[in-house]
């Protein structure tokens, strides 16, 4: 009798080095799949880049408007600066006059000159009492003259000394100019800000209409339930949501101090994906069949083939195939007594997408009114179905396989959101609004399906008041 170990060893020896060239089509398939994956990845990058570009553009537009409004503020400041400059030049001429007097007087008696200078300084003081800048110049001037008095210098020396203060004065004038400019804006800043604010506020109060444009990256999923008979033949509903991008235009009318009404037109997409599931199927009678076809461990569901049409129960309703998709196998389940007597085998993932044009009537309540406004938004939307597609995605890419049956054209949805509004300028504000949109009716008319999509999106855009 042969021992197990010996037998194992014999098997190992025979089989370990065993090799056999595979058929050539295997490599072709591998190559095809690898290039397919590369393409897919590139496509994914591309869509991300597009999304990023849109966001960046929106922000750039925001900055553009922001810069325009900023220019208004500096222009008012500039005019103030000009004013002070004028004042200073006036003062300088007075000083120049005083200095020439001084020089004249220096040629006269020293005693007299001293007196006049002092009186002149005094008068200076009086005239410039309300001008801080001048007082400051004076303060430095006085010690110069007192030093004069003390040392009783000779004429030449005096002139020399006088020139020096003159230069110093020039320097001082420069200093006081910048200082006065600063001081001016400091004292007036508040008033200017006040003015700008009130003018803005008055503009805000005047503007009753607001126009907005939005982009809304979002996520959509659904709340669904199915009748027992429907669910029996349904794909396993291990479904997940869909990321998507919507957007539109809106118009607001302000009816009161805090309340406004909004309408508009939005494009939105709802849908979901049905995943490949390891729990393959809902019906036990398919078990054997699935086993016999076991090299396809794929998405596997009962389908009804009748009159050359293929139908499949899915989360959002019955998918009607426009043809047999690529890389799909349909097997007959002869033991089944129900009408869904065929099995679809594929590696793909199904998604059902519904595109809506939504016309909202929303109420907006302003709860924080400041530089950043906060509003509560709520209301109803009429959702008009504009596109209805079903897709299958496998290693060969995304295929449109048909559409979902019984989807109503007109639907009602509710919206709730919080709007955060940042004023970029007098008329333009940037809005970020997380919103939730939930369909109040089942968008599928089939009595066996209750399918209510919902969507969470961040409406980002600009408002223009007029």
């Amino acid at each position: 009798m042969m021992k197990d170990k010996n037998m194992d060893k014999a098997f190992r020896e025979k089989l370990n080095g065993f090799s056999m060239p595979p058929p050539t089509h295997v490599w072709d398939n591998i190559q095809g799949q690898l290039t397919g994956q590369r393409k897919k990845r590139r496509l994914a990058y591309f869509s991300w880049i597009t999304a990023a570009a849109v966001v960046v553009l929106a922000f750039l537009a925001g900055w553009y408007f922001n810069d325009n409004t900023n220019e208004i503020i500096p222009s008012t400041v500039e005019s103030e600066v000009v004013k002070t400059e004028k004042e200073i030049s006036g003062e300088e001429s007075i000083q120049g006059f005083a200095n020439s007097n001084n020089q004249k007087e220096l040629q006269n008696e020293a005693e007299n000159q001293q007196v006049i200078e002092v009186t002149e300084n005094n008068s200076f003081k009086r005239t410039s009492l309300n001008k801080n800048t001048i007082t400051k110049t004076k303060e430095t001037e006085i010690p110069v003259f007192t030093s004069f008095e003390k040392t009783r210098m000779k004429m030449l020396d005096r002139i020399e000394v006088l020139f020096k203060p003159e230069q110093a004065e020039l320097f001082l004038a420069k200093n006081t100019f910048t200082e006065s400019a600063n001081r001016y804006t400091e004292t007036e800043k508040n008033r200017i800000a006040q003015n700008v604010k009130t003018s803005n506020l008055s503009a805000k109060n005047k503007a009753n209409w607001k126009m907005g444009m939005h982009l809304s990256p979002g996520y959509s999923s659904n709340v669904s339930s199915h009748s027992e008979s429907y669910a029996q033949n349904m794909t396993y509903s291990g479904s997940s949501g869909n990321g998507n991008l919507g957007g539109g235009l809106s118009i607001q009318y302000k009816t009161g101090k805090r309340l406004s009404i909004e309408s508009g037109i939005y494009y939105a997409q709802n849908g979901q994906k049905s995943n490949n599931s390891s729990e393959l199927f809902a019906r036990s009678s398919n078990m054997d069949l699935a086993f016999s076809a076991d090299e396809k461990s794929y998405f596997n569901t009962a389908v009804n083939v009748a009159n050359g049409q293929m139908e499949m129960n899915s989360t959002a309703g019955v998918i009607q195939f426009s043809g047999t998709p690529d890389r799909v196998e349909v097997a007959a389940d002869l033991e089944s007594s129900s009408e869904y007597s065929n099995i679809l085998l594929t590696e793909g993932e199904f998604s059902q997408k519904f595109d809506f044009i939504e016309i909202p009537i929303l109420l907006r309540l302003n709860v924080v009114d400041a530089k950043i406004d906060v509003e509560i938004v709520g209301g109803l939307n009429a959702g008009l179905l504009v596109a209805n597609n079903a897709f299958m995605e496998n290693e060969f890419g995304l295929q449109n396989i048909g559409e979902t049956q019984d989807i109503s054209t007109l639907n009602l949805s509710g919206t709730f959101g919080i709007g955060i509004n940042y004023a970029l300028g007098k008329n333009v504000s940037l809005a970020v609004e997380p919103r939730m949109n939930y369909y109040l009716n089942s968008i599928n008319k089939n009595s066996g399906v209750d399918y209510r999509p919902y969507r969470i999106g961040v409406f980002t855009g600009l408002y223009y008041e007029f």
Partner: protein
Amino acid sequence: MEDLKNIINDCASGEVRAQEKLYRMFAPKMFGVCLRYAKDNTEAEDNLQDGFIKVFMNIKSFRHAGSFEGWVRRIMVNVSLEKYRKQHLMHPVEDIGIYEQVKFSDDILDKISANELIELIQQLSPRYRMVFNLFVLEGMNHKEISEEMKISVGTSKSNLARSRDILKRKVKQLYGEIETNANYSA
């Protein structure tokens, strides 16, 4: 071997030529591995294809630490295991039975070819085939097998015994003195 290292690096940067070279180097051997795990050639081809896709997708993560062939082989085995797990979700009933030992002479295996052996292995049921492969050819122990296949250690042991038994019978039927057991059906 420096050559292989270069090919691997080129594959990592996505060069199609290098990928083809690598495939030509390893495909026959790996096809041999896949054949043992599959019930027929078509399934083996599918697994080989999926395995090589995985190899190329993950080749960047190969650290040149161990044997590359071992790494590729492990991927092939994993693909087969994954498929097995996906397809055979039914939890097996514990079948710890004792089977009558088949009498078997040592030299009988010398006559049989590797091709014929693989055919016999392919005829085993998926679970027996998996256990036999993992234990005998991959050198895994019953505990590891039970974890990989989500079965108990006992089931793994009895499955191995059973698959050995079936294989012995089949070899005997082919080459030995034909001594069919009327009560037995494989």
